């Protein structure tokens, strides 16, 4: 990458597991954000597509500080529910789950109710994403 995101001291050395769920096909957003997290100092484990079961297994193995999800297909409510329930069933606690993508603002409340820690809709600047994640992990 030629361009850089500034390092964020609160994120340096922390690990993120990042994935796309279901069959959604768009990778541009998730890859751009993954690069930004890495430039900010995080260790990023990008899974590509994962089923909720595969994601939970990766979280158990990697012990990340953050789980980042991406959805542009409209599958976010079902998939987030499955991920949150899977993490809970596996006894994973205290790892914030955030999501970005084509998420209608009207769904943000339902995602918060599921336990999603932050929603980054279309147009979210990288610096906003980094700052909010840093605050979540502080």
């Amino acid at each position, binding site marked *: 990458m030629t361009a850089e995101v500034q390092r964020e001291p609160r994120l340096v050395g922390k690990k993120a597991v990042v994935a796309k769920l279901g*069959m*959604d096909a768009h990778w541009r957003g998730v*890859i*751009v954000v993954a690069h930004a997290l890495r430039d900010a100092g995080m260790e990023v484990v990008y899974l*590509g597509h994962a*089923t909720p079961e595969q994601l939970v297994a990766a979280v158990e193995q990697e012990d990340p500080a953050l789980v980042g999800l991406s959805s542009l297909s409209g599958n976010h409510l079902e998939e987030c529910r499955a991920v949150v329930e899977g993490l809970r069933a596996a006894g994973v606690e205290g790892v914030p789950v955030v999501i970005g993508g084509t998420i*209608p603002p*009207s769904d943000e409340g339902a995602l918060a109710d599921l336990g999603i820690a932050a929603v980054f809709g279309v*147009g979210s600047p*990288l610096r906003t994403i980094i700052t909010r994640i840093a605050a979540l992990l502080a």
Partner: protein
Amino acid sequence: MSDPPTTASGIPLPAAAGPGDVAPGLDERLGRPGEYPFTRGIHAEMYRTRPWTIRQLAGFATAADTNKRYRMLLERGATGINGVFDYPSLRAVGSDDQRAASDVGRGGVAVDVTDDFDDLFEAIPLDRVSVSLVSSQPVGAAPHLAMFLAAAERRGFERAGLAGTSQNDFLMETAITIAPEALPPAASFRVECDVAEFCIRELPRWNPISVTGYNYREAGADAPLELALTLAHGRAAARELIGRGLAPEEALPRISFFLDAHSDFFEEIAKFRAARRMWATFVRDDLGVDSPAAQKFRFHVQTSGVTMTARLPHLNIARSAIQALSAVLGGTQSLHVDGYDEALSIPTEHAALVALHTQHVILWETGVAGSADPLGGSWLVEHLTDAMEESAGALVDRIEQLGGLVAATEEAWVHRELSKRAFADQQALEDGRRLVVGINAGLDDGDGAGGIDGDVDVRPFELPPGALEAQRRRIDAVRSRRDDGAVAAALGELGSACTDGANVMPSVRRAVAADATLGEIGAVLRDSLGRWHFPLW
């Protein structure tokens, strides 16, 4: 401004272009509309005698739901169908697959069996309305086309009279859209060309490949890379089809293209014009083919989804209209305009109709359709057309040095170039080098986060419920009526065709005739041709 202005891709802009900005020899580089090198358009009279096809994308939930949307668009003045499939269907994964559950009917229509194609095109006169199947990935394009044909023939339409397009692009499967279990690039390209070869021999009015530069652009390419990947793909397909023994005069006119209309108005027009000239030059000089039909770069355009904003979505109507105008001034053969709610959901009926009628505004009100290539001879546009040819040409040369587009995909060159530009583009937005109204410019509270007084909330499209259950019921019904032995035999034959190197289309068609499901056919293709790890990270 500190830096001198450039186009979006970095071509320096003259303060006021003049004759000195256009290299000598312009007459030869232009020709006349309808004549080599087709810079000015592929028809002599362009839209006077052949208006572009108004082809609005549609697809969601079940085939019956989508059929209603198709018919509404046709009744309101669309002149072709542009049918998009949901994510599992694009990948030939069944709606009954656990991984598909949350995406059935999302982003496109769910199809699993031929009966779905019966419903999808019910009451649509397939002998008069051309159909673009946005079957972007070859693994899905082959069975989708087989099911479409089976359904059309069941209704009594002659195969030879069916007009349309399969998108069918191996780069969509291996570089542009991710999903689990992509075919390897060479295998996906082979299936693409199997479909193309079948169509060239059997379906005289079908475009079996639409090289989807649009999606390359949306994934991160700038205009020169979009054009270069598109042309490199066209080159690969042309060489492969000729290598299979098809006559160039038969095969080349059947390759079609699909480009993006992005925000930089004159650069986009230059891109469309350069595309025609570069393709014609390649066909004549590299392939040695003199047939004008073989030299014509025919293309569809969609306005740019990634430029649409979720904030102040009504501004997207202005963005789309300007982008659509660039496509018309650039000489497109068909056009989709995005809905203003593109950044929120697939289009509501209201957004779809505003987009449809935006095309009518351009066609009927502005007068731009009356004269071919109205910007031909503009010093600025000719300067940019030449510059685009040069920058895209250098990238085409680079891809050829890598061994062509399949090799460049296998070694992840394509993925690196796309993600590099996607990230740089986001950085340009964040540091203010690229301005987007409502995001980082034009509103008064510093960070652009304000609104417009009286702005109306846009409600996202709500998917009709029940698609997943309907598809599962339909798959069960087909499985209970069919002869499982015949299905197993047909799928076994398909597996053999894959490993033997035979064209897969005849056996895909036999599997469809035996009522194999899309997911079953996709599984055989993946099991026989392999699965590829997508090298994005």
